[in-house]
């Protein structure tokens, strides 16, 4: 059952730090009134019966580890997504959760096996968007992208660990073909280009904004000189 109306989310997150003191007291405000009725007003503060609130507490600084099995963008980010970014996100967050548990000596073998199994499933989903040339694309109907492929290479490169190779193994040939494809987009000055389809309209607009800031600052400093 979903509450009615457009959902508004308010999130308070903080660290309880008891590293160098013995007592910590915090008061967290719930930003909802007891009654949605505003006297003499036509509208209500919220739909009757719609508010939900929950408190989550977990040790250490990593936050909730593996909030659902398998991990999904719905459980981690409250978003429904599909395509490379979603599969890559699930794979990366599972692998970092496992790395976290491993490095802090908390990893149980059943968690490890189910986690690696989920990573294999994500990997299979991811390979649907792979092109034999060595590129990945963001979605079924998208064009190959250097940005997306670099993210895939980065996440897959970091998800490998020697002890896990019997359960989760990234084919060297896959990484090699991706790297070869990436290298073909390098210019002589060392910069990397984006593919033609996304060079002026990147999937992540923050890259575009930044380059324009840089153009300005570069021009400005030349002007000053």
């Amino acid at each position: 059952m979903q509450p009615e109306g457009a959902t508004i989310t308010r999130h308070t997150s903080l660290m309880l730090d008891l590293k160098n003191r013995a007592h910590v007291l915090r008061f967290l405000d719930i930003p909802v009134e007891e009654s949605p009725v505003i006297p003499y007003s036509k509208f209500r503060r919220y739909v009757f019966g719609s508010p939900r609130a929950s408190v989550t507490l977990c040790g250490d600084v990593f936050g909730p580890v593996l909030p659902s099995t398998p991990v999904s963008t719905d459980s981690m980010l409250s978003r429904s997504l599909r395509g490379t970014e979603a599969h890559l996100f699930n794979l990366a967050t599972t692998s970092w959760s496992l790395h976290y548990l491993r490095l802090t000596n908390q990893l149980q073998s059943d968690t490890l096996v189910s986690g690696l199994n989920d990573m294999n499933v994500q990997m299979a989903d991811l390979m649907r968007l792979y092109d034999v040339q060595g590129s990945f694309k963001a979605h079924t109907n998208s064009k190959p992208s250097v940005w997306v492929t670099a993210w895939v290479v980065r996440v897959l490169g970091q998800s490998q660990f020697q002890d896990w190779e019997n359960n989760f193994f990234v084919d060297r040939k896959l990484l090699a073909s991706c790297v070869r494809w990436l290298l073909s987009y390098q210019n002589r000055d060392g910069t990397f280009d984006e593919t033609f389809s996304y060079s002026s309209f990147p999937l992540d607009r923050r890259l575009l904004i930044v380059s324009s800031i840089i153009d300005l600052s570069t021009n400005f400093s030349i002007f000053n000189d």
Partner: protein
Amino acid sequence: MGHTAHVLIALSKCSESLEGSLKVDTATAKARSVNYLERVLSYLRDPYEVAIVTHALTLANSPAKESAFGRLHSLRRENEGMVYWSREPVASNGVVYENQRPFVQPRPPTDQDAVAVEASAYALLTYLARDGIGDLQERTVAWLNTMRMNDAGFVSIYDTIVAMEALTEYAYRARLREITDMTVLIEASASPQASQQVKIQSDNLATVHTLEIPNVWGHVNVIGRGAGQAVMQLKVQYGVDWEDLRDRPKRPYFDLFIDETYSHFRNKSHIVVEACVKWLAIDESPTSGAVTLEYELPSGYGYVQSDANEAAKGISLVSDVLVSSSRVVWLFDRLSGERLCFRFQVNRWYPVANMTMYRSALVYETNSPGGLLNNETKLIDGD
């Protein structure tokens, strides 16, 4: 620059898996990129770019990493004892004093949150690789943990991945597990029956304790004793049916129009949905980045994924579509200032008493620097 640094990080992360001549080619390419980044380093002004470039240069062990680090260090921002990197100052949780008690408010989202989290995570990784654990690192971790907009995730997709990497590295070095032994008492002022005492010890460190609050008003008291660190989060959700009460971004980014036409026959079992979207911030950029449009299905109605796939082929710019149990999610590579309209038909599967008056549809940039903040939400008036 950010793009080149990003590809350089990717190449550094997988260079161990490469063999033969490709390994040599990759090393050459990496050296060339490092060379380029060293050259442009002195022109960099943007904290996000400085953070990602410094991280890339540190990974590549370039001699310029020290000057990059100096630049990164001078660009840090401080707020209430916490340290972060961001293009714009990020406001921390507000505090309201009532009866001498400081009540922590939810953090107000800003339109650069995802960039700030990603930049700070890169910076934290650089500091950890250089100096290990220190006071500044602790304060960055404290800041990162105030930035969660979801129980497990941060703001958006890629900043969550980088933040998890940085926090893993930190937790590995901080070795807090051995000393952790804390007792936390959680009380909700309006639901005394729901209060709970939680013990966090080294053997249950990763266990997530969740407490549902039945009466959603008042406040939550948290009393912690013992030693260690813990992340504490309060999530509150409510539904509104009044357009003026929904969150609005600083400026409109999208124009969204949804119209539903119910069939005149068979008890309104077919709904033809017409959706129109348009990118409004053409002064910032002529087109948007990748865009997600979520349409909430009325209860009892459904849409088949294979039908959706067929429909998606006929619409320009639609890159993918996902049908989940409660919503249809359309994904676009980009939207321009030109209005894009398309139709799809959802059908009734189960007879339910449709009491829902309002549902929502929202559109946002998938990789928006502000996460979900820059969205456009429409309330759909169900007939």
